[in-house]
Each structure stands twice: as C-alpha cells, then as structure tokens.
C-alpha cells in the first residue's frame, strides 16, 4: 500500500506537495532504523506483487477467481502481517506494546503467516 499511496500524492501535484514529499523521503531515510528499512523493502516487494496480480486480474482475466483471490489475499495478508511486525518492533511504539517483545512479535508474525498460507494453499485450487 505504501507504493501507490506516495505516487498518488505526486499526481495531485502542487509545488508545495512535492516539497513535502521530498521532506518526507529525506526524513524517512535519516530517521528509520536499518531493521525497519529492511522490513519496508519486503513490504514494497509485496505491494508490487499485489499490484501485478490485481492488474492481471483486471486486464487479462480473473478466471480461476479463487486462485486470484488466494494469491491476492496472500499478498494483502502478508503485507499487513509484516506491517504489524514493523509496528511492533518499531522502538517508537515501545510504550504501546507492553506485552509484545520484539521476539514475541516475530513469533506472532511467523504463526500468522503459517496460518495465512495454509488457507492460501487450500484456496489455490
């Protein structure tokens, strides 16, 4: 979701907005820990794969609709689970997640992904 959102903003162009985006990008690069950037790279990959699948569905065919749904849902699901992981391990959110240590967060993430992909696999058909 991160990718299309930032491009959407540039499309509603005004010089002020583009300046804001530039600030945003610079601030992101400066302030984010490397671990989170790594997660973000994975997130943008998932977004790309989701967008590709969606474009295929719209432009070519949605024929095995369950297969499309399974693939797209795996993208979306993996995205939100990874984004959840990112939120949980983000040092800035430490105060919010008192019960979830980073290790626990990763275990949650792994479990969620396994359950998700179990259903994805079952739904592929």
């Amino acid at each position, binding site marked *: *979701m*991160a990718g299309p*959102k930032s491009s*959407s*903003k540039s*499309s*509603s162009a*005004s010089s*002020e*907005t583009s*300046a*804001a*985006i530039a*600030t*945003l990008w610079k*601030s*992101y690069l400066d*302030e984010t820990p490397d671990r989170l950037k790594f997660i973000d790279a994975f997130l943008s990959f998932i977004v790309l794969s989701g967008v590709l699948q969606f474009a295929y569905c719209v432009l070519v065919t949605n024929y095995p*609709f*369950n297969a499309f*749904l*399974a693939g797209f*849902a795996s993208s*979306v*699901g993996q995205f*939100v*689970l990874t*984004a*959840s*992981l990112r*939120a*949980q391990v*983000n040092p*800035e*959110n430490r105060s*919010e*997640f008192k*019960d*979830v240590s980073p290790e*626990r*967060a990763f*275990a*949650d*993430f792994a*479990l*969620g992904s396994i*359950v*998700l992909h179990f*259903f*994805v696999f*079952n*739904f592929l058909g």
Partner: protein
Amino acid sequence: MPAAYPLPTDLSPTTVANTASLLRIIALALISSAAIASRLFAVINFESIIHEFDPWFNYRATRVLASKGFYEFWNWFDPTAWYPLGRVVGGTIYPGLMATSGVIYNILHALNLPVDIRNICVLLAPGFSAFTAWATYMFTKEMKDESAGLLAAAFIGIVPGYISRSVAGSYDNEAIAIFLLMFTFFAWIKALKQGSAFWGTIAAVFYFYMVAAWGGYAFITNMIPLHVLVLMLMGRFTSRLYVAYSSWYAIGTLASMQVPFVGFQPVRTSEHMAALGVFGLLQIVAFGQLVRAHVSSKQFQGLLFAAVVFTGAIGFFGIVGLTYKGWIAPWTGRFYSLWDTGYAKKYIPIIASVSEHQPTAWPSFFMDLHFLIFLFPAGVVMCFRTLRDEHIFVIIYAVVASYFAGVMVRLMLTLTPVVCVSAAVALSSLMDAYLDPTEPEVEDEKKESSTPASVVAKSSTSTTTPATPATGKKSKKSKDKETSAPAGGVLGELVSNVASSAVAANSAAPTQKGIFGLDTRVVVLLNTIGMLLFFVVHCTWVTSNAYSSPSVVLSSTNSDGSQHIIDDFREAYYWLRQNTAEDAVVMSWWDYGYQIAGMADRPTLVDNNTWNNTHIATVGKAMSSPEEIAYPILRKHDVSYVLVIFGGLIGYSGDDINKFLWMVRIAQGVWPDEIQEPNYFNRGEYRVDSEASPAMRDCLMYKMSYYRFAELFGSQQAVDRVRGQQVPAQGPTLDYLDEAFTSENWIVRIYEVKKDDVLGRDLKIANAFDQGKKRKRTKPTSRRKAISA
C-alpha cells in the same frame, strides 16, 4: 484503615492468591456442571431425542458423516430432498456442527468408547454450553475482573435466553455458535489490548470456525469493523488496533472463503463490504500516521488533504462501479427485513412465515433474561465510566444487539451474552463495594493530625456516623447509585450534614468512597442474594416448562397430574417408514420436510432449507387449490402421499390450518391470478365452520384436515378445539385422495394419492359412479322403510 468486619491477617499473599484461583476453578467447574445439568430436563422428562425441525436434518447429515466419512459427506448429493431437484448438501450447509460431532464421535471411538452418534448429537449443545460459560468468563475478565467473569459465566450458564437454543437434543448450529461468538470476541479484545498478531490469528481461526458453523457469523463480520470504526472516529487509533484488526481481517476473510456455502461472498456481497472498507481505511490511517511521524504538521495537512480527496473519490467510484456492474451483490432480503420489519411480509412471505423471524414481544425479554434485563443498562453505564477500548466494544454490542433482538425473536440469542456480561459487571461492582471491609473514616485520621479544618469535620462525623444505621434500609433501594456516590451522599434527610461532610471529605481525600457499618452491607447483600436466588428459580422453571419440549413428542397433564405423552408424530413417521415404498414421495408443508426425511426416510418435495421459493409455492398452491387443480400438480411431482398436521381434535395449535394462510400467501406470490388471499376469508374472518368461504371449503388442505372429522363426534356437534369453531356435520368429501393413516390423536393425517382410474375415467366421475351405484342400491330400502313407518 478501620474495617467493618475483621479479616485474618496472618495469611501470606501467595496463599490468598492460590486459594482464590483454586476457588475460581471450582466455581467454574460447578457453573459448567450446572449449565449442563439444567439442559437435561428434556432428556429426563422425555427421552434422548433430537428436537424440532432443523436438528433433524443436522442429525441426518451427521449420521452420513459418521458412517461414510468426511469426503463422502462433502460430496453428498441428496436426491430425496426437494424432489425431483435434489440437494447438493455439502455445498449448501454450514458444516461446522456436523464436523464437530464427527470429530467427537471419532475420538470417542478411537478411545474404544462406542457412543451412539445420536447421543453425541443430543448432548453436544449442553456440552458446548459449558465452554460458552468459560468463554464468557474470559471475556468478562477482560472487561472488569475475575469475580465479574464468574458471575457472567454463571448467568450465561443458566439464562433461559441461551438455554432456549441449547437444551439437550436441540442439535442446531446455535448450539456451538454462541461459544464461538464469545470466544472470537474474547480473542479480539485480547488482540486489541495487547496489540498481538497471535491473538488476532486466534480470533481469525475461531471466526473461521464460526463461519463454518452458523450463518450468524455476519454479526461478527460487522461488529468488529464497527468497533474499529468507532475507535478511529473517537481518535483512539493505535498501532495495537492496526495489528489486531489487520491480522484478524486478512486471515479471517480468506479463511471464511474456504467454506463452500460462503464461497466468494466476502468479496462480493454488501454485508461484508463494511469490514473491507474499514480494513482499507485502517491501512490509510496507519500510513498517514507513518507519514506524520516524518513531516511537519503543516506539510502533513496539505498531504492529508490531497490524499483524502484522491482516495475518497477512488473508493466511492470503485464501490458504485462495482455495484453497478453487478460485482457486489446488493443486500439480501433477510438483511432488509432487519431494517424494515414490514419488508419481509410484503415481498418475501417465506421469510416472514417463520415464527422465529417475528418481532420480539416485550414479556419475552423478562422471560428470557429475568433480572439481568434490569442490570443490563446499569452495566452499560459502568462501561461508560471506565471507557477503555474494550468497554466501547461492549457498549456497541449492547446497542446493536438490543436493536436486533427487538426485531427478530431468534436474535435474542445474540443479545443474551452481552446482557450477561454487563449485568455481571454491574452486579460485581455492587458486590465489590459492599464486600470491601474498609470503612471511609478519613475524618478520624484527620482529627488526629489536628488541623483547624478538622473541627468542622469532627462535628460532622459525629452526626454522620450514628445516622448511618438508621438510613441503612433506605440505601438498599438506591444501591446502584450508592456505589458511585460519595459516602454520605445517600443520607437524604441529612442534606446539610452531607454538604458539610462532603466538603470536608473533598478537601481531605477527594476519592474516598465507601460504606459504613456492617448492617448496611448485610441488607444490600441479602437483597442481592435474594435476587440471584429468584433468578435461579426462574431459570429452572422456564427451562423445565417452556424450553425443554422436543416438539416431536408432546406431553399433556392428566387430571391426576401425571404426564401423558402424545407421540403422534413418530407414530405417523414410522407408519410411513414401514408401510410405504421406499421411493414414495411425500408431500407436506415445508416445516415437516426434515422430520419426514429424518424419521420416515422418504423423499419430500420441500423441506426446512427454504432455498427454492417456487417449489414451496407449488406445494402451497396444491394445498390451497380445489382437488381437480391440485391433482395434476401432485401427479406431476410423483407424489404418493400427502401429509397434513391437524390439531383440531386435541387442540394442538401449531397445525397446518393455522399455517395455511402462509401457504396461500406464498402461492399468491408466484400465481397471483389463481390464488388470492381474500378468497379464503369470509367477510374478513378466517373461518373453518359452516361460514367458511367457498375457496376455503374446496381447498385440499381444508378437506384433508376435516375429512371424516365430524363422524368422530357421532351425533354431537363437532368442534375444532384450536379454532374454537363448530365444524359442519356434513364433512368434506375426497375424490382424488384416499385416507391412508390417521394417528392416535389425529395430529398427523396421511392421504394416499389415487392412481389413474383403471377404466381411464376421471377420478371424480369414477367416484361419483361408485357412490351413485351405492345410492341406487340403498335408496329403495330406505324408501321402503319410510313407507312401512
């Protein structure tokens, strides 16, 4: 701190904690056994039998599952239902219930416990009620504390609103669904509190189980997004919310699509769109938060504006376009009838005809919930006082479920858990306040510290303290208020003292609240215990009297007080089973379809899975038409037997004549030219006596119900005991049907459809010919008699 009664002081905190947890476990075990035991009235009063209508299908499906295995069950095509269409059972049911019983059956058999599948089905609902009590305990524990949890568990264990759907033998989807509902909500609250994807996944898995078990899963599908939306509108967005909802929705939605009956609905129908919309909104808000962390607020506002305009436009046109192209189905009829109670009656009589879809009568709230219904608002108000995220959930749940329970009787079931939870919160707050031994005598302490202000306080204390016992009785009436009011606040007469002492108390310790004296506590607590006792008595009484009838077996009381069992249904179904060909098609109104299939094992035209309105209307038309019109319909559908339920003899009011107007209405919906409801009334009155309208008197249903009924009374006037009307002595005649069987109390009457006449005549003419011959033979004798006399 002074105490109202002494507490032992030589106990270590660990001992107290251990004893408390042991007591909790014992209490939960006792609650579970009470929940199970009170559901066994049906088995004790009658026998271990499957109840009512739908459970008979579930039972039949479970038998298939147990005997043939899961794959056979999954691919089961039932050619005997909806004759001649058949029914793809595997794809048109919620398999959760059968799968649960199947798993239990297989586990027990693996342990060499050869339990009959019927007993598993009968006892499944009581067993799961124990789990429900536990899930409610966990849920309420998150709201307040363990003691409130135990109260809630005790309430839900025996409250009639839930028992009505879960007595032994009521083998229906709701039996396990309420447990799943409560556990999903508990996991959701837990996920939200901790911000844990683990609990989100648990919630999703139980949501999946719920989807597989009950069509009411749409309640969860909309409750949780509504909760999230309200939290976001209140400005309570947190990363925990994001984690909990995203993990639940992403996994839960995909999982729900695994159930064949649900299929692609979560992405295609409007009922599920709210969850999807909230999911999208949450992503946008989360991304917005991320952006805001990195840019200044002014720039952020510019970005926000552009983004909101852009995504809003995209989303709106997207939804409109998809609905327009038919990708998203509009709301279904059942859903409309939730908003407009008159909708179903106008457009889909088949939905309105089901008694459990009727609006709820007010007394049934008291009947089903007893004193919980009074505590319920108090509990909701208490939720407002703390108002953490999970309390907002209870408040929303309370509002939504109250509305739905008022619209449809069967949705009382979804209201019951939240009533138990909030009543438990209210009652446990009350008990907390009155069991706490500490007394709020801050003034005394202050006196010792001897500040000038204490002189005022001292004087007020001396008046207040002796006055408390005198007003103790008064305080019990306003006990809800009292828990929140400051110590002296209830002393109505001593307003002036209150004012001065309150000022003094406020200046000293503004949060000091409490109860004075032992007698106040005892009075209030005795009252509470009294209420609880009455609740238990009421629950037991309602359960044993109102909700434990299998409705397959009826009972009446003899004049000497002993029980008289009326077993007409099974008598008739076994007659069908033993005396008719195995492929003989039985036509009846759809209510009895599952029972005929389950007990008589014969093909039926329509059954309780009312998916094909036209087919049901066909049966309605056959029942409400004269014989000449009905006969071709019967022959075209290969009907060999027609079964009607008739309560006129013993006063069984749920019979077909009372349901008949729905048959007419449903048939009218499909054939408005041939069947018209007003024709069945005589000047606006629904009558079955000599004043009955011609259409009524000629229709098949009337004829089958009252055929030879008057003969039973001999020379006396025949009376229909349900309608309280006198039936004409000259009863209806049948040309195309033959009476095949009538049960002991005439509740079930079965007619055989005559085959074509061997000589090729119309059956009516043939019949007239037969009777004509008889008349010729008898007439001369009677004439001779007349002459001789």
